[in-house]
């Protein structure tokens, strides 16, 4: 029977991870991820988690331990945040290129200095090109569901890639919300044991990660690219299967909200993606035809769907990140998806860096600026163009 559990994003994530029965969890604590790994440690103490829990001395080691364990064919999980994620950077590339489905939560937190523990997506955005599949969640229920879905996705024989599930510091990691938790039997039925095509096995020795020449290396990269393309289809299927089995759906690559007949479609991620729904409701009440396409999956990027949206509406992008010297990362990706193929206008806002609150009223203001033709092509909300 499904039970309703009310708890913070981190404890909910710990519950989901343990229900996936990872053989190895290796983690190093960092604010605001700490309660996630505490949660798993608690399940270890009570016996609900029966795998290996390796306390390591750094995040680099945490990812290295997960890579080593995953290469032996077992299921692995970890979690980190901000500087911890950045310390893992080399190992993130390694996990992806070794095609190891390590599953990891990243609690989106500011990169310092200035020292700050609040929400900001620059940590995971700066890991964009490591080859990891990247999800951004907007509710505790979505965190729970996406973790379990990610094991199935990453471990699929045509994918075999690590998956990062990101959610905003404190706004989700430390906020209690009710979550439907299915029973273990139903999770087991959805998520079969990992069945890797190859693994490190002393009885059948093989080598991996060895030297390969340029022509072969390029094929490795192409193969990874093809898996990302295939993941777009598989994410659709897994989301559909989840809906059939458990009755819940948060979108697949994107979540659409009131996009029918919309003249303008707002694109945002993470917690701003949830808050945006309240803004859309208010704008619609005023007769302004706005819709929302919340980007759940940033890698692979849903460029085909976004191109389709641009055929019927102008687009507005809110980024809680900045690529210095350019613009918000989502803004760049959205425009690249449309190149030479649409007449849609696209405006971008930077908002909520450093954990600055982005209430629905501010989102409505951004939208109205665009309608009134007062928005710049790219604008730091509240700091520029006031």
């Amino acid at each position: 029977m499904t039970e309703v559990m009310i708890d913070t994003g981190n404890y909910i994530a710990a519950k989901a991870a343990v229900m996936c029965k990872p053989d190895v969890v290796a983690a190093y604590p960092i604010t605001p991820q700490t309660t996630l790994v505490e949660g798993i440690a608690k399940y270890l103490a009570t016996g609900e988690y029966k795998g290996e829990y390796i306390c390591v001395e750094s995040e680099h080691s945490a990812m290295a331990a997960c890579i080593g364990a995953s290469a032996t064919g077992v299921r692995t999980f970890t979690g980190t945040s901000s500087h911890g994620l950045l310390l893992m950077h080399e190992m993130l590339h390694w996990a992806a290129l070794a095609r190891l489905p390590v599953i990891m939560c990243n609690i989106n937190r500011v990169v310092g200095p200035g020292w700050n523990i609040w929400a900001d997506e620059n940590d995971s955005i700066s890991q964009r090109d490591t080859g990891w599949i990247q999800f951004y969640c907007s509710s505790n229920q979505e965190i729970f569901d996406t973790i379990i879905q990610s094991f199935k996705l990453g471990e699929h024989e045509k994918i075999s890639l690590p998956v990062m599930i990101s959610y905003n510091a404190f706004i989700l990691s430390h906020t209690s919300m009710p979550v439907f938790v299915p029973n273990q039997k139903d999770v087991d039925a959805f998520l079969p044991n990992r069945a890797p095509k190859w693994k490190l096995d002393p009885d059948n020795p093989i080598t991996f990660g060895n030297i390969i020449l340029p022509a072969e290396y390029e094929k490795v990269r192409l193969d990874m690219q093809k898996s990302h393309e295939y993941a777009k289809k598989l994410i659709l299927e897994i989301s559909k299967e989840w809906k059939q089995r458990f009755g819940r759906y948060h979108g697949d690559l994107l979540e659409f909200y009131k996009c029918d007949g919309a003249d303008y479609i707002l694109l945002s991620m993470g917690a701003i993606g949830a808050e945006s729904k309240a803004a859309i409701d208010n704008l619609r009440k005023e007769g302004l035809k706005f819709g929302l396409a919340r980007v759940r999956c940033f890698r692979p990027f849903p460029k085909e769907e976004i191109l389709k949206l641009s055929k019927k509406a102008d687009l507005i992008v809110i980024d809680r990140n900045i690529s210095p010297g350019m613009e918000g990362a989502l803004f760049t990706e959205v425009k690249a998806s449309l190149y030479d193929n649409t007449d849609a206008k696209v405006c971008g806002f930077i908002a909520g860096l450093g954990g600055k609150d982005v209430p629905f009223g501010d989102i409505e203001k951004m939208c109205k600026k665009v309608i009134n033709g007062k928005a710049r092509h790219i604008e730091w909300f509240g700091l520029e163009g006031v």
Partner: protein
Amino acid sequence: MASRYLVEICFHGRGGQGAVTAANLLVAAALIDGNKGVQAFPFFGAERRGAPVRAFARISHDEIHLRSEIYNPDIVIVLDESIMDIVDVLKGLKKNGKILINTRTKPGEFDFSKKFIVATVDATDIALKHEILVGGIPVVNTPILGAVPKILDRVTLKSIQDIVLDKWKGELAERNVKATQDAYDKVEVKS
């Protein structure tokens, strides 16, 4: 979101008094009472013992999309009245809003009782009476929750007590339940 279905609550207390726990327990009780959308969260980052802290709760009949702070609460709950000397607890409180204060003072003695609905209860005394102490210091979060159903019909005393029994065990749980009952019986409301 001026929906009549959404109630927003702001707790003010000092680090260590259990404001965050109070918010969590309240929304867990509200969920039992059929409010499908609930949310509780701390003001992020200032959790120092003795320092002024805030915690927030949202209670709705529907799923809550909001992830922002609460700027215009329907209800303010003050766990430590000395906070009122240094923090403007009435800031943003909605017209006809309600404020529940842990104090010996009667509701009508507060100037703002002309403008807002004021409820008062001596939760510290109740915590001492039932020996709800951490390190010898009275913890007022569960006692004051017992007073909430008198100013908010979306949560019942029964559900609050069920949640208390779920969180604590044995004799300690019983003392907490008695404290909630005491606060429920003793709270005075002036509208």
